[in-house]
């Protein structure tokens, strides 16, 4: 049951929950930047939560269906239109053979997740259909979706999924304004002065234009001052340089102490810039919904808070499952 891509939107890629296990070789886990939104969209159409769907940034694609299907659009507020008629997000929608799914203008958020009953059925690579363009892995020939592509769709599971069901608004999570991202200090935190440590959390930052699947750059806060040291052999001359090391997902590196970069699902696995901490796992999804220029505050937390937030997020997913069960 293929779907014809009439137009591709912006940076529309096939994503599932990713391919963990190869980070030590420089192949990141990838997968949906807002994993909760992809899970919710899949649940709405009766798929496994990890089925592959489409991730679109700001502008959605136009898709022509050749068979009846259920679709759901979660994450960004990017209202879907079926043959021109606007429909709600976070809701299971019936699309008939021959109909065209397109999208209205973006109202909030960044990334919309489009799930189709049966899931997109391109060949998995290293256990995942997620598109990792740098390594030409997954997706269609390792690249973003293009007009003229046909998307293969797997057999629908024909379970209880019903058109019209929706995820209750209380269970939809997005970044606030200003967005708040919780950060556990660590890694090379000791490399900046106490004043710089305070400034980082006190200042208001803004998402820069360089904000993609690899990472999000921020601007607007004060430059971080370094604790003086003689640079170790192999590290390079700049005080922000370290002997090339691994980069955790969500880690906050600050080249030359000026513009923090948070690495996301398609992270480079390592490099020579120091990091001052890591965004907690519970808040990673939010980053995927932040637009350039979004005002952002970093909130300092400890491990206890990070683990509690993680449990809260797990409960939220469980509540979404129950609301659709």
């Amino acid at each position: 049951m293929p779907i014809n891509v009439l137009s591709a939107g912006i940076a529309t890629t096939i994503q599932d929950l990713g391919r963990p296990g190869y980070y030590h070789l420089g192949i990141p886990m990838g997968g949906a930047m807002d994993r909760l939104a992809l899970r919710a969209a899949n649940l709405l159409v009766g798929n496994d939560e990890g089925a592959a769907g489409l991730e679109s940034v700001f502008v959605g694609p136009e898709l022509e269906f050749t068979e009846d299907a259920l679709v759901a659009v979660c994450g960004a507020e990017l209202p879907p239109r079926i043959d021109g008629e606007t429909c709600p997000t976070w809701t299971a929608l019936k699309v008939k053979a021959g109909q065209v799914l397109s999208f209205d203008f973006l109202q909030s958020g960044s990334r919309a997740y489009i799930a189709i009953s049966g899931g997109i059925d391109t060949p998995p690579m290293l256990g995942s259909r997620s598109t990792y363009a740098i390594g030409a892995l997954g997706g269609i020939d390792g690249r973003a979706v293009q007009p003229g592509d046909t998307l293969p769709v797997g057999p629908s599971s024909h379970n209880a999924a019903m058109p019209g069901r929706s995820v209750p608004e209380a269970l939809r999570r997005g970044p606030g304004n200003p967005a708040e991202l919780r950060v556990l200090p660590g890694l090379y935190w000791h490399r900046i002065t106490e004043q710089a440590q305070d400034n980082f959390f006190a200042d208001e930052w803004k998402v820069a234009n360089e904000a993609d699947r690899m990472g999000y750059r921020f601007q607007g806060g004060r430059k971080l001052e370094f604790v003086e040291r003689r640079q170790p052999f192999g590290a390079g001359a700049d005080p922000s340089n370290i002997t090339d090391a691994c980069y955790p997902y969500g880690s906050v590196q600050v080249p030359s102490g000026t513009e923090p970069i948070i690495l996301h699902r398609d992270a480079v696995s390592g490099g020579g810039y120091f990091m001052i901490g890591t965004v907690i796992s519970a808040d990673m999804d939010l980053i995927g919904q932040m637009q350039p220029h979004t005002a952002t505050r970093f909130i300092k937390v400890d491990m206890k808070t990070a683990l509690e937030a993680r449990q809260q997020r797990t409960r939220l997913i469980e509540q979404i499952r129950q609301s659709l069960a």
Partner: protein
Amino acid sequence: MSSRYTFGGDEHIFVEVDEAMSLDAFFVSLSMTNAIREAQIDGVTEICPANASFQVKFDPDRIHPDDLMARLKELEETAETAEPVLDTRIVEIPVYYQDPWTHETLMRFRERHQDPEATDIEYAARINGYDSVAAFIEAHSGAPWFVSMVGFVSGLPFLYQMVDRERQIQVPKYLRPRTDTPKLTVGYGGCFSCVYSVRGAGGYQMFGITPMPIFDPEQTVSYLEDFMVFFKPGDIVKWKPIDRQEYDAAVAQVQAGTYAPRIAKVRFSLNDYNADIDGTNARLLEALHAD
């Protein structure tokens, strides 16, 4: 050396073996990551060795971060007493130094370079005190290298040369990164060589190119049939300078599926190496050319 343990959020533990790069620090990182892998700790999902550090990713729903931290510190004591010996392989990688493709690229980005009047390799030779590019190539391709990390992007190896610190080549990265680097460029930044596994942005100085693909997601290259990534940490590499004719011949062989990298199994002892660097390297190269 005293390792520093720190959390990378609620899903990673990051361990810095040493701030500075050395073969000893790399060996601790490699033996620690091997020990952690063998320990098969429930909840550990990824183990990533790096040059003088390493990282462990875990699922905090399965193991508490503090408990894992304690386990890793225990394992460090075990790893410290283990004999620093590694069963690995030595691989010969042909390099066409000063090739036309990296030359074209470096000319395009001259304004981002420390020395716009010279090429990358001329600059590197000069600041490292070599009389000529030829003498520099001899040093770069003479002693072998350890793959001390695989990463950044798809299967890209970082390599550290097996010579004492006085003989280590050091070059800064470009002032501003390039937006383009040919695939399979042999690069250099800090004290590390690398091979760009894919085309893309980069900041390392460009010395040459290898005809030997090291990453192939389609797995059509004969020696990448089993797995798409060629290198792993702990591999030993010897660069072999080649000319245009040899380069073209190797490219044709790769395309025909007949290219077979020269590889030999070797045992490396860090203690033997520290006692006699040149002698150890000579034995490694003998093993490489034994057949």
